[in-house]
């Protein structure tokens, strides 16, 4: 496996989506290739950090406007 072939599959690798055979080939390559090891590690870190980004909470006035808009469109109770 070349660096290029490994590079193409790294996201699938860090997401655990590859077969055992391919994972074995990747590990064999990484055993002698520090740049690929570091690239894989920092790519996984990038994905993990995304998951931990803070979300913007809905402002109360935006929630209130949504409720007002929907109440005009909700079916009328019988």
């Amino acid at each position: 496996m070349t660096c290029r072939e490994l590079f193409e599959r790294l996201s699938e690798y860090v997401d655990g989506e590859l077969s055992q055979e391919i994972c074995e080939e990747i590990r064999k390559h990484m055993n002698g290739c520090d740049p690929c090891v570091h690239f894989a590690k920092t790519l996984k870190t990038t994905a993990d950090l995304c998951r931990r980004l803070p979300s913007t909470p809905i402002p109360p006035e935006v929630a209130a406007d949504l409720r007002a808009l929907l109440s005009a469109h909700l079916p009328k109770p019988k």
Partner: protein
Amino acid sequence: MTDEEALITASKRGDTAALDALVRAHQDRVYAFAMRMCRNVEDAKDILQETFLGMVRSVREFREESKFTTWLYRIASNACLKKRRRGVHDPSPDQELSLDELMPRPDSDGRKPEIADWSEDAEQALLRGELSQRMEAAIDKLPREYKIVLVLRDVEGLSAEETAQAVGLSVAAVKSRLHRARVFVRRELAEYFEGRGKSSAGNNPDDRRSRESNPRVLDQNR
């Protein structure tokens, strides 16, 4: 039947309280997604309203073939992409991300590129609150079609299959876009961490581009 399934069933019968409960259960998630995609309150509000109006109007058509949240993300994603097509708001250029351009390449002597392992630094920087803004800026630079996939998959935590349902792509296309998007954001972070290392030793702006970012292939023969 879960609580949510009960609410969906009641909503399909036109139960107003159930519809309202569904909106309340999902409004934070949809708003956070819309804000991440649009980066301004007015556009995010439009998308939020369009998503829940869509939900109220078509909940009867929801067939339980996907999760309810995925179905909502689909409505919200369509609203985001429609907004872009209308030209109302589009910070990201329409471009393809090429793996050849994103792959680190060897130096002029053909040696492998130096790739620093900054994963520990990133952890510390996140804890110190320094990294979020930098990451948001990197994600904002992504072309819209890549950004939506990365946001759904890595930020919102949908599976590849759910993301594919939400954006109407094949799973293979989602994986391909996700990989390019991640590599792009990783490169932005690498530049940040390398730049910080250099800044203490006096930073030449011409050197600020990462050593990795040379857009040729890493090693064709290995």
